[in-house]
């Protein structure tokens, strides 16, 4: 059970978030939508526990994983070590099979800088799932990828979520991504931002929204 109750989050005088409340179960996926600069990433940082400076209360599970807008890998450690150093409980064998799952097993001994951006993001995704998280936080994980790579990443994410079954909070601009991964959508609007709508989404909506989205 994840309970988010943010009464107020401010940077200095400026209030960014106000009265954001929702609860979700393990296994549920929630998408957070909103225009850029509204405070989606700020909210994610609160939920993930990176930023403890806010008024309110967040109940979160022990095992959390996050995929950032950038891959955020350790560029000075090998691809394999990027998994095993972050998850020391993961054996070499499990790490190898995680790399195999995302199709970069042959690159295990390279440095992340030697991978393509798409491969780096897949590695970041593998790192997130390797710890079998109860809560997975995705902060626009497919941003700045070309359409084909983004699609590949989306499919991979879907499969991994199905295998691991964590609670997922996804921030995105894209309705397509939101509808594809999430059963429920929170829309942030206003200044300070608050939840404008909390809707169940269905694949039925997909065909209608898909054309507006990438505009």
């Amino acid at each position, binding site marked *: 059970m994840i309970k988010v109750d943010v009464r107020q989050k401010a940077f200095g005088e400026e209030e960014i978030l106000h009265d954001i409340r929702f609860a979700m179960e393990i296994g549920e996926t929630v998408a957070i939508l909103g225009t850029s600069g509204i405070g989606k990433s700020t909210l994610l940082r609160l939920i993930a*526990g*990176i930023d403890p400076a806010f008024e309110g209360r967040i109940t979160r599970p022990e095992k959390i994983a*996050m995929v950032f807008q950038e891959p*955020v890998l350790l560029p*000075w*450690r090998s691809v394999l070590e990027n998994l095993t*150093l972050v998850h020391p409980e993961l054996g070499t064998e499990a790490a190898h099979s995680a790399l195999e799952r995302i199709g970069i097993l042959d690159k295990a001994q390279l440095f992340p800088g*030697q991978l393509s951006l798409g491969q780096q993001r897949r590695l970041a995704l593998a*790192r997130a799932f390797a710890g079998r998280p109860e809560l997975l936080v995705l902060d626009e994980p497919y941003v700045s990828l070309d359409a084909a790579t983004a699609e590949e990443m989306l499919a991979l994410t879907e499969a991994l979520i199905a295998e691991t079954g964590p609670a997922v909070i996804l921030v995105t601009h894209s309705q397509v991504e939101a509808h594809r991964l999430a059963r429920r959508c929170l829309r942030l609007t206003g200044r300070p931002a608050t939840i404008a709508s909390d809707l169940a989404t269905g694949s039925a909506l997909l065909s209608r929204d898909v054309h507006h989205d990438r505009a």
Partner: protein
Amino acid sequence: MDCSCTLTKTLQSPALVRAFSLGLLLLLWIVAAELTADTSVLPQPWALWPSFAEAAASGALPYHLGMTLWRVVCAFVPAMAIGVALGYLMGRVPAVDQWLDPWLVVFLNLPALVLIVLCYLWIGLNETAAIIAVVLNKIPNVATILREGARALDPNLGAMAQVYRMRPLARLRHVVMPQLAPFIAAAARSGIAVIWKIVLVVEFLGRSSGIGFQIHFYFQLFDVAMVLVYALSFIGVMLLVEALILQPSERRVRRWRTA
């Protein structure tokens, strides 16, 4: 045409350029010695050989070289350790920075000589005072460089380490230290160069062994040849340290950038 081409090509090899540049320095020395024409003021490079052979054979040169090197190591290790820790704290915790920054400015501007004399006066003419004087001279430089490094740490990597609950030791070793490595390397290289010069002053003023002491001794005898023999021997040792220890370790930590 052909000739100038091969010359340009040859000059592109870094090792050759280094050798050539050192050769020029040597040439300058020979010309200067020729012009002074007084071996007691500036002897020719080859005129140092007998003095060098004699000092090496008697065991005096290796002994004093060893003493100075030992003091350099004794001062270098704590100066780096304390300086890195202090600089990191100052870069990460603004309150520490605010409180310690004025101290840093004072110590950075305190002449090495003053610190050395004060240490000898307060602690006594002994090894402890000598080492402490050198360490105190070096810490502010290391701290200043490392403070910049700590300020430049990537907040995203910090967030990543926090979300995934990396253990403090693993975080230090795999997340923080690799980011600080270029700054530590810079501090170490400038540090070792400064430290050995300060060690020489310390020895000059109040020790009875080491290169500085020997230079003091031969200074009183106006023996330029021996002063040069001791100074050049130590420069040689430091070049070896640079080539055999500092450069390879720097190459190792930079490996991921060039891969």
